């Protein structure tokens, strides 16, 4: 078990290295030099050159990479041109909102999808199963922003059930619990949009994993013992079916964040997605690239957690 974990953690190192190279390449692909707007336009060309040389602008690429990596490890991801503050603090502010949004959506989708997937598998080829199947097909086929826009138009605008955008009612002056309720009210629609799509995938996955497990010999053994069907399904089958599902849930955090980019843009939710989109429009590349780096790091951690969880729920890993 310990060996397994150490190996998992060590495997991250080359991957992180690869990620940093990709990010560094992106920085260099970005058009223009990021400093031009930060330097006083009254400087002479000579001064400009000296200044750029001093900050290492003309260094060879490997040197630049090492310097950049050194700074990045210390949390210095550069300086945002639009926000006039360090990139990291901008990102952290928005990151929090994305995490709230995507984790809520994840929790909701897991709570819904796993039971529905299980029931659908145990009642294969019933009406319930067909409805679930078609619903999940639609869920994986709908562009998430289109779903978001439909929700805004019909639920928020036409029926007025939810606020249209943002995180809180501007100028309401709510405080304390009311403020929280207002926040939840704003949170609901983007969460529904994200969760519906996420649910569709998880449901399909749970269903097929469950169908596979139900065919196994040990399920027949459990029945032959005289176990009640409910226990056969929810103890013996589910425990095994969940092993791959848990991994998928962890890995799907990455997809959730991707989906969040589009959802946030539609709902003007001040998270990473909105930040990336705004920064692209503002040509604020340090922010754009750093967002990718932070997200990649986050996903890597999520995958690591998936591996660790996997080792905990599957006894076959522990002893290998």
């Amino acid at each position: 078990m310990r060996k397994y974990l150490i190996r998992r953690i060590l495997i991250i190192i080359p991957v992180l290295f690869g990620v940093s190279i990709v990010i560094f390449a992106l920085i260099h692909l970005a058009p223009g030099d990021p400093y031009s707007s930060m330097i006083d336009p009254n400087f002479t060309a000579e001064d400009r050159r000296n200044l750029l040389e001093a900050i290492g602008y003309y260094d060879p690429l490997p040197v630049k990479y090492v310097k950049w990596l050194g700074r990045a490890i210390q949390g210095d991801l550069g300086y945002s041109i639009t926000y006039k503050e360090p990139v990291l603090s901008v990102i952290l502010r928005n990151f929090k909102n994305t995490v709230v949004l995507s984790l809520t959506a994840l929790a909701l989708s897991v709570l819904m999808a796993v039971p529905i997937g299980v029931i659908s598998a145990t009642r294969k080829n019933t009406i319930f199963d067909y409805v679930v199947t078609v619903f999940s097909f639609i869920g994986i086929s709908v562009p998430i922003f289109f779903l978001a826009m439909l929700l805004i138009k019909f639920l928020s605008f036409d029926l007025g059930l939810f606020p249209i955008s943002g995180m809180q009612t501007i100028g309401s002056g709510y405080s304390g619990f009311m403020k929280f309720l207002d926040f939840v009210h704003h949170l609901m629609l983007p969460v529904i949009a994200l969760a519906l799509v996420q649910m569709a995938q998880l449901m399909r996955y749970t269903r097929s994993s469950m169908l596979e497990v139900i065919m196994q010999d040990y399920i027949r053994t459990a029945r032959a013992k005289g176990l009640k069907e409910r226990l056969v399904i929810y103890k013996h089958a589910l425990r095994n079916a969940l092993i791959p599902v848990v991994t998928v849930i962890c890995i799907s955090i990455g997809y959730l964040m991707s989906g969040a980019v589009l959802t946030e843009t539609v709902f003007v939710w001040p998270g990473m997605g909105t930040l990336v989109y705004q920064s692209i429009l503002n040509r604020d590349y340090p922010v754009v690239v750093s967002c990718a780096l932070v997200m990649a790091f986050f996903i890597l951690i999520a995958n690591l957690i998936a591996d660790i969880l996997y080792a905990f729920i599957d006894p076959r890993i522990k002893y290998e």
Partner: protein
Amino acid sequence: MPEALLEIQDLVTSFKTTSGLQRVLDGINLSLRRGEILGLVGESGCGKSITSLSIMRLLPQPYGFIENGKILFNDKELTDLSIPEMESIRGNEISMIFQEPMTALNPVFTIGNQIEEVLDIHQDLKKRDKKEKCIEMLKLVGLPRAKDVYNEYPHQLSGGMRQRVMIAMALSCEPRLLIADEPTTALDVTVQIQILELMKSLQKDMNTSILLITHDLGVIAEMCDRVAVMYLGKIVEETTTVNIFDNPLHPYSQGLLNSRLGNIQKGEKLICIPGMVPTLSDKPQGCFFSPRCSKCIDRCKTDMPELNEVKPGHKVRCWLYVDEDY
């Protein structure tokens, strides 16, 4: 008290397939006496495993179902029982062990947990007693490190040990009937004999009846008191084990015995059964075995013979033994 513990009458089990209903079991009649080991022998696809699953009412859902017939177990009609009633019989009065010890145990629960589960369902024991009983069972089936095994997971055990665990699990409630579906097919010869000897001695001690399903006549010779030979969903011969080896009547039984290589001298020509088992959707007219039978007469091609008792305790389904006294 009736002599027969299990009495199967005209059992017909069918499967729904894309090409319509298929009769996997086509009128099985079988009786198993108390304390007896009955062998059910036949080649793959003859329906021997489906017979056992029909008794347990564990046919693969939603395809398989019992179309007709009765299964009397200890005076209870199993086909009429409700699901909870059936559940209280499974693992308690009738238990089962399977062919593949590698996959028959749930990989995510400990051995102890899986055995205690049976006790949980059928017996009312205190927690400590349960564990004690569980370890006692593991010792009974000859597992040397019973206390350790209790806390181990199936993947830590070898095939032979897992099959012992399965036996411990199956016998923990002292069932009246144990159904063993090819219990040693997946094991090596030296392990096979360990398991067979274990089953024999436990059967004697606990006076359990065993329905032993196998394709291996050697295992039958080793274990069984009586034997029924199956071919394509029907029983073709039923008699004592000694009879089947000394004086097989049905040409199929004869062919099976002749196909065994162990006691044929080197260089002797093998007498093979020609052709192969037909598929269920393509059953021959008349006697199902007629196209492969070397003693086939005209009548065999048109009519299916009944399972007749041609000698006391010797039933056979063949036209050769119907009219004339052989």
